[in-house]
């Protein structure tokens, strides 16, 4: 008897528990208008039918406090349905979101609708894409569940006016949900579901603010992050990681006070209704030895003030520009850029007129790119980019130092006859970068026989050629490592000496001596 009672009590308890979690109900037709909408409740599943191509089912939900709703609508075989969500403000329902994945037979889900006290109407209707038709055999099931609001995006936040506000050191949770936004008619991002955030920056003492932005990865989603200024101009866009991976913006410089916007979106309408992303924002004050993004052009180049600067390659296409104004003009300087492991740096140097002087990519990932020396006549520009970006913190350091030498040094660029260095008795040169060709001009009053002595590049191999007046090669010699060779040549008033690398070594110089015979 006791056992029988216990069983009954257990059944009653289980029934009570289950009914508390989710209870079921059915729609009551007609409910085709807002005025005859059926009331629904949170955690109470409701079943209904889209009986004909014209059938519309309206449900309303009264909300008494701020919270997050998850809306799930099961699929109807052969029917593309959708959910239109309205907020009833002053008895005037305002459409705030359309949930429609544009597919037949599939369910619709919206992971996080932010609601406040008031009335919301959920309209189950046909989707916009396929032929509208009824189905009286397969019902749909609509279930709305709820959770407390805490540091989450406030959907719908699909435009700058409804952007979720965040601040320094904030961690905000959001979803790549729903898959599409039918209300997005922007020609560039049409149908794209974009989560908008906004933050305020106050600049004091003209010291820029650096922001770090970190978006966590979500399974099955290839995400994109953009930052826009108050004029709605995109100032940075990051899409360096692949599907399931996060995106990072670090040390991005902001020089003007104002409201800035962040767009978080997915590529190819990828979604995940179950796993949220986390968006982390941090501010810090700019250090003048650090890069200040956005510096992707000559116009926005950062000034190198203390002969050293650190920066980061934020995305594969990121190119950081710096301007170096030498304290001593017409002097030789040495430049080096060192990246972390996995970061293959490309360092490019431009003259004051923004003409490319040379591009240095001699080392592999994690290696240092160096210009042994080069003459800086006026200011120069450096650009730093990466040919491979397999580092989690793709940081680099660019350092410049004055180069002192008593020798007559090559002046780069001298890659052609037109830029050849005039050589008198002796010159010291370097293979500055891969395939660097150095031209030297020799001039005499008449025909002159000379002895040319060359010491090669240690741990390298070079080819040295002499030419006629027009620059056509007459004689070539190859020099292994730092061995020294001599040969005679005749120059008819003018000729060139050309040095080309066969096995490049960028560390050690070659030396050419010329002696009249």
């Amino acid at each position: 008897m006791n056992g029988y009672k216990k069983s009954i009590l257990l059944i009653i308890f289980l029934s009570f528990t289950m009914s508390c979690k989710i209870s079921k109900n059915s729609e009551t037709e007609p409910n085709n208008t807002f005025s005859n909408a059926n009331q629904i409740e949170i955690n109470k599943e409701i079943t209904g039918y889209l009986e004909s191509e014209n059938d519309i089912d309206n449900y309303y939900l009264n909300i008494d406090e701020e919270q997050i709703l998850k809306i799930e609508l099961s699929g109807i075989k052969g029917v593309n349905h959708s959910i239109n969500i309205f907020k009833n403000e002053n008895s005037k329902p305002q459409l705030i979101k359309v949930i429609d994945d544009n597919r037949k037979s599939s369910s619709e889900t919206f992971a996080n609708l932010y609601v406040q006290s008031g009335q919301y109407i959920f309209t189950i209707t046909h989707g916009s894409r396929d032929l509208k038709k009824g189905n009286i055999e397969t019902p749909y099931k609509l279930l709305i569940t709820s959770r407390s609001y805490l540091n989450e995006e406030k959907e719908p936040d699909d435009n700058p006016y409804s952007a979720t506000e965040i601040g320094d050191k904030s961690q905000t949770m959001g979803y790549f949900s729903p898959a599409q936004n039918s209300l997005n008619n922007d020609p560039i991002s049409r149908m794209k579901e974009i989560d908008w955030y906004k933050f305020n920056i106050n600049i004091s003492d003209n010291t820029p603010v650096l922001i770090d932005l970190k978006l966590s990865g979500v399974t099955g989603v290839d995400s994109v992050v953009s930052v826009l200024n108050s004029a709605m101009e995109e100032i940075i866009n990051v899409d360096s990681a692949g599907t399931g991976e996060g995106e990072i913006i670090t040390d991005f410089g902001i020089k003007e006070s104002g409201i800035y916007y962040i767009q978080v979106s997915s590529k190819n309408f990828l979604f995940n209704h179950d796993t949220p992303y986390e968006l982390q924002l941090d501010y810090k004050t700019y250090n003048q030895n650090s890069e200040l993004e956005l510096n992707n052009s000559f116009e926005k180049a950062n000034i190198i003030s203390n002969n050293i600067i650190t920066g980061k390659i934020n995305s594969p296409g990121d190119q950081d520009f710096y301007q170096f104004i030498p304290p001593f003009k017409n002097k030789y300087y040495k430049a080096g850029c060192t990246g972390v492991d996995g970061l293959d740096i490309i360092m490019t140097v431009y003259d004051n007129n923004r003409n490319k002087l040379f591009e240095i990519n001699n080392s592999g990932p994690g290696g240092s790119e160096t210009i042994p020396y080069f003459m800086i006549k006026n200011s120069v520009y450096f650009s730093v980019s990466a040919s491979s970006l397999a580092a989690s913190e793709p940081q680099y350091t660019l350092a410049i130092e004055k180069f002192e030498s008593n020798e007559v040094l090559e002046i780069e660029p001298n890659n052609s006859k037109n830029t050849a260095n005039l050589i008198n008795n002796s010159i010291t040169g370097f293979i500055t970068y891969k395939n660097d060709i150095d031209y030297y001009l020799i001039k005499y009053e008449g025909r002159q026989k000379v002895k040319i002595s060359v010491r090669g590049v240690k741990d390298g191999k070079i080819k040295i050629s002499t030419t006629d007046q027009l620059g056509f090669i007459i004689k070539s010699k190859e020099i292994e490592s730092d061995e020294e060779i001599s040969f005679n040549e005749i120059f008819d008033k003018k000729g060139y000496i050309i040095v080309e690398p066969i096995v490049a070594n960028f560390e050690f110089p070659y030396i050419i001596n010329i002696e009249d015979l």
Partner: protein
Amino acid sequence: MHLNFKILCLIICISIFGCKTTEKETNRKIEGENNFFISIYDSDIDNPENDRRCYYMIYVDKIESGRTTTGLESQEKYFDTQLTSNRHLIKVEKWVLNESLGRYVKMNNIDQPKPDFIYINIDKDRIVKVKLKSSKSGTSSYSMTIE
């Protein structure tokens, strides 16, 4: 007066002869100067398209001694050097410009001037000048003057 006229004539004659002697001496080799000159050209180039840029490598006694100036095949190209008093073998080797390569390349042996050598005798205080005239057919003729 008559004696004065004779003395004047004598001075003029001495001066004239003296000048001639000096002129003769300029043709002689001066110590430390070059005493061998060679100029080479193609005599029958009649089409600019076939007139290639070239030079000749000069070998003296089978040792590379230098090269001529560069120029078109139809132009005279020169080389000069100082040789010891002796009999010398002078050999020439033609190099033509390959514009696509941007360098001069040695012509095939079958296209080299024939003969591509000449023996010369260098005497003390004498200058030897050789003129090599080449033709399309590959034949070459040498003329030599000794001063």
